[in-house]
């Protein structure tokens, strides 16, 4: 049991290094400096600031800043200290416990991974769903209006009131099954050959002429509309914004202050996350939309037929790439819808029975001869 140690002393007033002999006494460290001076440092007043790693010299500090410094090159010092005076040594690093520290670090690592995965897969979507209803409807409407100006500029809208009213009838039939809604639904048709429809927060539904022309009957359009209506009722755009903000926070927490090289990976990670959340939203809109059709006694075969047409149009996307898509694979969506229909037993009534569906396709003026009305 070695009680005497060799070290170096700095008095905190100059850079002059002095040799010292150090003794482990009952209540204090005794330091005999070369030159004769003797110092006593009570253990309770000593701070250890270096020496927690193998081979590292032990650095002890005493006094207010700028502190006096004692350096001991031999880390058997700590082991002896703990053996000799275990109570006094409690505040100092114990080399015997290094293995335990490594084990704790591994546990912390696993716990971090679990926390991150949990937050990503469950925490963020749940938080967004809970927070979304607190966003005022007027904010959603403003957001929707600015989106609308982007995708459906006024001069490209087809404003034939009679035909728009027919489409509105379909929406009203569906909404009748949903109870009171604070959203005012408005249909907009855009004169472009795009095969798409989308929903903007606050109640705006945009249908492109290209999609309208591909529908065979009212039930097919109803299938599309039900999906878009549910995007609005479930507040998917608002939730996306909240999810994106939360993901940013999560990524920032992980990355901390590590900058530069990492920021590119960070952007990519966020985008992948956002695409996954968006796929969840699409599946939710499909399912809720189908349920709404069934409740309104609209034949869901139209929705399926429409998706089949989409699938033929799209061609195949390799399933390996599905993680970078904002929409789930169409086959997957069709399969889910079919199984939902098989599980239900609703009857249906024909939509707009006295109306010839081909008439609706005239809602937009033909672009070449706008003068000939």
């Amino acid at each position, binding site marked *: 049991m070695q009680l005497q140690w*060799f070290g*170096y002393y*700095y*008095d*905190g*007033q*100059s*850079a*002059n*290094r002095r040799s010292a002999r150090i003794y482990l006494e009952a209540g204090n460290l005794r330091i005999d400096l070369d030159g004769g001076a003797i110092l006593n440092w009570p253990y309770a007043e000593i701070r250890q*600031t*270096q020496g927690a*790693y193998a*081979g*590292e*010299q032990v*650095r002890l500090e005493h006094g207010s*800043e*700028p*502190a*006096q*410094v004692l*350096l001991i*090159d*031999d880390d058997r010092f700590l082991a002896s200290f703990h053996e000799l005076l275990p109570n006094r040594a409690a505040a100092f690093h114990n080399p015997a416990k290094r293995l335990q*520290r*490594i084990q704790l*670090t591994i546990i*912390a*690592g696993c*716990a*971090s991974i679990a*926390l*991150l995965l949990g937050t990503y897969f469950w925490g963020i979507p749940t938080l967004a769903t809970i927070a979304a209803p607190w966003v005022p409807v007027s904010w959603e409407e403003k957001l929707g209006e600015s989106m609308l100006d982007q995708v459906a500029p006024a001069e490209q809208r087809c404003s034939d009131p009679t035909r728009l009213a027919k489409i509105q009838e379909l929406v009203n039939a569906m909404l009748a099954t949903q109870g009171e809604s604070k959203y005012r639904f408005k249909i907009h048709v855009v004169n472009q050959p795009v095969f798409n429809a989308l929903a903007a927060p606050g109640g705006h539904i945009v249908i492109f002429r290209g999609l309208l022309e591909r529908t065979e009957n009212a039930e097919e359009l109803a299938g599309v509309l039900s999906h878009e209506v549910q995007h609005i009722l479930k507040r998917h755009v608002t939730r996306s914004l909240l999810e994106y903000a939360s993901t940013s*926070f999560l990524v*920032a*927490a*992980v990355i*901390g*202050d*590590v*900058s*530069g*090289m*990492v920021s590119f*990976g960070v952007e990519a990670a966020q985008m992948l996350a956002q695409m996954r959340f968006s796929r969840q939203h699409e599946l939710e809109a499909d399912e809720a939309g189908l349920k709404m059709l069934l409740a309104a006694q609209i034949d869901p075969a139209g929705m399926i037929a429409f998706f089949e047409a989409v699938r033929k149009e799209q061609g195949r996307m390799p399933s390996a790439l599905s993680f970078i898509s904002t929409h789930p694979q169409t086959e997957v969506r069709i399969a889910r819808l079919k199984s939902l229909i098989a599980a239900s037993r609703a009857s249906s009534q024909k939509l707009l029975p006295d109306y010839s569906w081909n008439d609706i396709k005239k809602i937009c003026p033909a672009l070449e001869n706008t003068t000939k009305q």
Partner: protein
Amino acid sequence: MATEGDIQAQQLDAPVSSTYPIYFHGRGGSLFGIQIVNLFLGLITIGIYSFWGRVKVRSYLASQTEFAGDRFAYHGTGKELLIGWLKALVLFGIPLFILAVLQVVVGIESGLFDLLQILIYIVVGFFIPIAMVNARRYRLSRMSWRGIRFSFRGGVGEFIAIYIKGWLLTMVSLGFYYPYWQTRRQMFMISDSYFGTQKFAFDGRGRDLIGSFILHVALSLPTFFLCWIWYWARVQRYYAEHTSFQAARFRSTVSGGGVFALWFGNGILFVLTLGLGWSWIVVRNMRYYASHLTMVGALDVAGIKQEAQTATAIGEGLSGFLDLDFDLG
């Protein structure tokens, strides 16, 4: 237990000309352990622990760096960084946020939008030199060697003038003033740095670098801009050579090829480990720079006295918002 480092330290107390290498003893595994604990505690405290975590990393890196037989020590605290961050938020983050929101409110078509944009540039332009000076002052004041603190005593006003004047001249000269600007900034940063009572000195001149700069501008396109790695190494060597302390000078042996290999290797390591290898990259860098930096000459530090200066961590907070990265060298 006398080590090679001890023997070097003995020699320091007598002013004999010598070469003093720098060693970095840190290991990637140890740093990784620190980072994992930082991540865990950061997650469960929703980020508040990150300030303390940053201190842990800096303390580790400082205490694993050895010069002439003694290791450095870092004395900053998480609380200081947190307060610095809060101050920066109030002074800078919030005003900038308000300006950005105003931009959205007035809309991109409005004439006010451009005016606000100019205001934002001005605010950021002023805060960058403020952040640089403040952060340097804070970090140096929290570093010590042999118990004696470093300090930085340059004035913020002086640096703002240097920074903005130099930036304008660089713009006007289509970039050719850059070596002069960079060297002027380095002069400011070094010549007001102190170890205890003793000042550092810098005698570099922009005109010594302009030739190399022009050469590298010419080589930019043919080398797909890779030649700038070699220019960076050249500048490091020049600045080290022209930085002195008492009768000793620094000497850097970094080379363009060495730095290129280092950074390229870091990139591969990063990609292969999906980012988890970050700690090993930091250690690689520290080892490289430490092993290529020495001090040559007669050092007599026994007589240097403590002259610690106060400093706040606002610059640290500002640098976080501005996404700046600082080195002490």
